[in-house]
């Protein structure tokens, strides 16, 4: 795995924190899906539903091509941003695989957006996802 940027390290750390120790795959899947929901909620008003779906699909594609062991998982979730489908695929995995998939997917999504609109704007738009306490709007209730 290539060296992670500071932001990616924070994403991984934040995911680990929300998953907690000794979590089962259901808990891991829920943490990943919930983060994605927050990202979607933050981006959709600005770049539109279609823009977010396109970024998600591109992220999945990049995950699979950079990490061949994820290709199988990728094949089973590559529908339009369907987080329920993602959740059901993730719970089939082992804890380690599910967490790894989540880390790679979230950091890839973030890095992809960074290449398009730059680090400062990406951080600005997604600030509420990882720093709810610093956000100017109350974080939305996204948990199922």
């Amino acid at each position: 795995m290539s060296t992670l940027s500071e932001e990616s390290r924070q994403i991984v750390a934040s995911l680990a924190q929300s998953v907690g120790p000794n979590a089962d795959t259901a808990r891991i899947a829920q943490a990943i899906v919930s983060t994605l929901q927050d990202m979607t909620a933050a981006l959709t008003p600005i770049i539109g539903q279609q823009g977010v779906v396109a970024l998600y699909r591109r992220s999945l594609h990049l995950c699979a091509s950079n990490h061949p062991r994820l290709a199988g998982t990728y094949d089973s979730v590559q529908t339009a941003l369907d987080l329920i489908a993602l959740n059901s695929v993730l719970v089939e995995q082992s804890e380690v695989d599910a967490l790894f998939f989540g880390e790679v997917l979230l950091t890839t999504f973030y890095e992809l957006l960074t290449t398009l609109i730059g680090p400062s704007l990406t951080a600005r738009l997604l600030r509420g996802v990882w720093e709810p306490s610093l956000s100017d709007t109350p974080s939305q209730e996204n948990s199922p």
Partner: protein
Amino acid sequence: MSTKVTINRLATGVPGLDEVLGGGLPEFSFNMIAGPPGCGKTTLAHQMMFALATPERPALFFTVLGEPPLKMLRYQQQFDFFDSEVINQSIRYVNLADDTLAGNLDEVLRRIVSEVEAHSPSLVFVDSFRSVVLASQTQDNPNNNLPQFVQQLGMLMTTWQATTFLIGEYFTETDTNPIFTVADGLIWLRQSVERNSMVRKMEIMKMRGQPTLPGLHTFRIATSGIKVFAPAPLNPIEAPLEFPIKRLKMGVPQLDEMLGGGLPRGYSLLVAGPSGSGKSILAATFLAEGARNGETGVIAVFEQRPNHSQNATLAGLIQTGQVGLVDSRAPDLSIDEIVQLLLSEISRLKATRVVIDSLSGFELALAPTFREDFRESLSRMVTALTGAGVSVLMTSELEDRYTDLRFSPYGTAFLTDAIIVQRYIEVQSRLLRIMAVVKVRASAHSDELRLYRIDDNGLQIGEMLPDQEGLLGGRPTRRLSKDRV
């Protein structure tokens, strides 16, 4: 106390635009930014938005179909005015693509209204409004009524105390379009292409209640954003000539004598002569003499390689900052851009002497689209510069003609207050130079044709050639001796 409504005018933050708009942007106005693709509409909108939006006066930017917001954000952040930190705070982007795709204008209006009510913006942008219109037309939806939609939008935005901009691609201003009627302001952006040159122009076709500056105004887009070159304001009350006339020394004592004691202050002087006759040397001497008396100057050089043609005196003055150099090699200059460059340099240095070397180079530096109006342009430049109170020396390349006596190739001699003409003559198998003062407005001056030469110390004016006649024909003949008695 007046009980009439006061319309606040907002400073747009776009250099030159407030002047062109006639004093800024009227608050709560409903405006249209129109023009063909690539003319800078979205950039103009963003630059104004970033300048005007504050936490107390937030902005909403609706993106509709057209340029995907991701790309817009990607490219707009290349500009210096773009500040990521204010996004989602004083500036919010709202994507309406899905609502627009459905093609229902009522639904689009409902979304805009609900966002406006939720955020109470002071500034609203809709980019691109054209796509809203197109989407409504392609749908087989009898309920869509564009004039009504625009009417309602305009009314809603104004009552919500929002200054609104609709951004749209339009190619001809003759489009019968309900928006053009409803809008308070109509800003057209254009790209005028002639051969290999492209010039951006802006026109304020309409701005209710404002004395806008008519006509096309050139602008440039750089990393700092859009810069509009508004024409220099004309000073309506020109200071009357003071008597006795205050005069500037030219740096050549004999020439001062010929001018009747020097160049009257605030005059424009045309130095016309053939190539190599010493016009640039005279211009440099003029600036050096100013510097010797503690005055500062500005020189505008329009040469392909300005450093190569510069003489040592001038280079020294530029280096010490006594003379400011305006050396714009930007392609496709407009007269207003040059005047603005000159005026800003003049006010920076508090300059009193200005040199333009040469008019021929200046004409070449102008974009082809302005060359037809060269005389008008020149007249405006001279007026703007002398209006600023400076004395101007302009050089003009003059093809030597021995059959007629002309002073400039542009028929611009009447524009200047004073004229010095230089000529080559042939005497005894030598190429000699003569100089004469042709005109000094409201002042006595010499009528002598004087020989002069150029050496290491500059321009040295010599005697007349009383025993020769026909000097202006270039091939003088010796007068018959009986005439001299």
